[in-house]
């Protein structure tokens, strides 16, 4: 069997990096969206929360699209088997992301408590479901799915005929994937709470800090369990186990930073923890991309699932040129919007453009202290 070339390895790493970028960035968006129903006890608080991620959530979500597109370009057989195999789960994920995406923009467009409440549910559902489903998806990838050769309508043979043959949804909800789903939900929510600590002041920040403190411990326990279990599927435990242990450490230190109110450090370390955890999963997976739980001969690997060296080279050039540029201007965005938000600086909803407008239900909020 051929072994992984340098190009294969580079692209496997790049896809891992894209997923890391997505989970670190949209991870806190999903966390903030989940916390809407918990920390967001009134409309003003919810608006503070939404506006912390308002300028950045869309750019963060793009990392998911690029991860998908890059998978299509570099490992088309992985893209095809995974996306068709996990069909219904992805369908639910897409509906959730659609609802969340529209909700941010449409929520403030009508001055009605019921209107806002509906969109808040859309934000909540559109954040919780993806947070869980990503964990479930990666749990299935890492532990292996029921993949085997099937009749190909196009007459493909070999790796081109490897398809998912499990049941549409139920086979994907095994104990390990569910545990990983619980982990991603808890970690992203905590990460979101820490982001809120960093981006707000006053009552929202206090509430976020309480959540981060309590949830951080639960997240730690679930994550340790999940990532230790993941070692059973790792192809190189000698490498991935130390990484997991470092990740556990950075999470604990992040938690301590939360306790001490060191927001910047807490957020940096929660980001590092997510990065290390995802890295550990990918490193343990390599050189496979979609292991088969039926027979290792049916594994999709970086070798049998990939595009040609020409395509991988072209894409490497594009990625090497574009990624630093993207990181630069996305990073700049966070600098532009570095100001901490509080309930007192959120303007009255600009539902209409008229100065003489009469709001039925939403009076100009009285200035709050902090």
């Amino acid at each position, binding site marked *: 069997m051929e072994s992984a070339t340098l190009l294969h390895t580079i692209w496997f790493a790049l896809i891992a990096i894209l997923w890391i970028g997505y989970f670190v960035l949209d991870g806190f968006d999903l966390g903030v969206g989940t916390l809407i129903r918990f920390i967001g006890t009134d409309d003003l608080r919810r608006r503070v929360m939404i*506006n912390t991620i308002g*300028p950045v959530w*869309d750019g963060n*979500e*793009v990392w998911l*699209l*690029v991860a998908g*597109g890059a998978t*299509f370009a*570099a490992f*088309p*057989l992985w*893209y*095809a*088997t*995974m*996306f*068709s*195999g996990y*069909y*219904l789960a992805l*369908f639910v994920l897409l509906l959730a*992301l*659609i609802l969340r*995406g*529209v909700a*941010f*923009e*449409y*929520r403030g*467009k009508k001055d009605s408590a019921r209107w806002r409440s509906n969109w808040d549910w859309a934000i909540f559902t559109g954040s919780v479901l993806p947070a869980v489903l990503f964990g479930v998806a990666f749990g299935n990838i890492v532990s292996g799915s029921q993949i085997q050769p099937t*009749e*190909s*309508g*196009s007459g*493909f043979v070999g790796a*081109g005929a490897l*398809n998912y*043959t499990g049941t*549409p949804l139920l086979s994907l909800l095994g104990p390990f994937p569910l545990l990983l789903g619980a982990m991603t939900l808890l970690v992203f929510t905590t990460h979101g709470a820490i982001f809120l600590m960093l981006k707000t*002041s006053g009552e929202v920040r206090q509430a976020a800090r309480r959540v981060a403190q309590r949830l951080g411990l639960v997240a730690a326990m679930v994550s340790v369990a999940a990532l230790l279990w993941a070692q059973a599927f790792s192809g190189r435990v000698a490498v991935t186990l130390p990484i997991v242990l470092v990740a556990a450490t950075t999470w604990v230190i992040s938690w301590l930073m939360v306790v001490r109110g060191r927001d910047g450090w807490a957020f940096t370390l929660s980001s590092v923890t997510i990065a290390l955890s995802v890295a550990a999963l990918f490193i343990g997976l390599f050189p496979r991309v979609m292991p088969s739980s039926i027979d290792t001969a049916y594994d999709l690997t970086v070798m049998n699932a990939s*595009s*040609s060296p*020409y*395509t991988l080279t*072209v894409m490497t050039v*594009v*990625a090497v040129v*574009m990624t630093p540029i*993207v990181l630069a*201007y996305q990073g700049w*965005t966070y600098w*532009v*919007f570095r*100001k901490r938000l*509080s309930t007192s*600086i*959120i303007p009255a909803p600009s539902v209409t*453009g008229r*100065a003489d407008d009469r709001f039925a239900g939403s009076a100009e909020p009285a200035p709050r202290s902090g």
Partner: protein
Amino acid sequence: MEALDLARWQFAVTTVYHFLFVPLTLGTVWFVAGFQTAWVRTGDVRYLKLTKFFGKLFLINFAMGVVTGIVQEFQFGMNWADYSRFVGDVFGAPLAMEGLLAFFLESTFLGLWIFGWDRLPARLHLGTIYAAAFGTMFSAYFILAANAWMQHPVGFDLDPTTGRAVLTDIGAVLFQNTAVIAFLHTMAASFLVSGTAVAAVGVAFLMKERQVEIFRPAVMAGAVVTLVAGALVAVTGDMDAKIMVQQQPMKMAAAEGLYQTTADAPFSVLSIGDLSGTQATRVIEIPGLLSWLSTGSFGSQVQGIDNLQAQYAADPQYSALPGGDDYIPYVPVAYWGFRLMIGLGMIAAAWAIWTLWRYRRGRNPLSGRVFRVISYVIVLGPLMAMSAGWIFTEMGRQPWIVFGQQKTAAAVSSSVSSGEVLVSLIGFTLVYAALAVVEVALLLRYIKQGAPEQVSTEPYDRNSSADTDKQLEFAY
């Protein structure tokens, strides 16, 4: 229904929806940028009000374009797994580039534009909407290049062992004339529909004598853009048709309902009867025009459906490919799709001429019921034209998903059952329909409210990023 048919319906529904919102995004973003530029350069607050007004409408629409776009990125793998395996080496690259070069740009800078009024100096803030506009345009280019490769595959080889397409020349894929012309034609059409929308909204205000001094420039700008775009659509459409005659002659023959190869072929403006059979009564024809449109010279031969079918069915390479031996697309859709695209698009240009004439030299006539009613609905013309165009070009390519290389029937995901596709088809259709209703309701609501009476003309304060007590200029 079989999984294949359900998957085709789903792709059609999701793509048509996506492409209702996207052309408005592609064109309107440049209007917003233009109005904001006029504001920055002249200081005339009317332009700032126009920027905020159309900016709000733009964002309401943009949200739908984005979320329906996420589905597109995933749908190739979900429903068309064998297509993805076959073309991934070639098709995947422009899609990944679209993400890296276009999506990041438009999403990041739009966020900066929406929230950055008080955080960025005026010129830099202006730059953000331009960056977003370019992002949307790059996005259109890459996806149209990918689609162009489906229409006319170039720059690749077939791998004999795996049977998959292998990229050999990225330049050929990205810059073939099919791609370039499709991009120009689509951008022109986007300006056609957006110009119509902007002008029509402005007309609604002018006819009610509301905020006339604000919306007059919008009417004129919109109408002029519509006219110019209409001319460019026609020119690029002609170029596209000539390319299509060379690259997919069956599509052109179906668009004409031309069954027999004919020299000096007439252009059928209207044809009735059994278009999917072999007889059609041609009611209105223009002699010789089809030959001229197809090749640039009168009297030239245009290939007919039956001749092409016989030719393709006899080709061993085509027969060897799974998916059957019927190479005739569904002719009525091709025929009517082509005509609706042209007719409905040109109606907008005609309306634009009328509008420019009506409001020339500062006039503002308030009467004219016919004009008013037409203006309320005119944007539907080019909007439906865009759908007609896409339905025509995609259904006209059938049975091929990649012309000459892979048939649609062989491309569908074999591991996805018809039950699963039915669930997603119903789900997407219902959710998209509901959200579209919401979007239109919001657009109408915000149009009715009119341009903002008051706008803050100097929102930027270099300390505002640090000052934690200063209210935000804008917040969700």
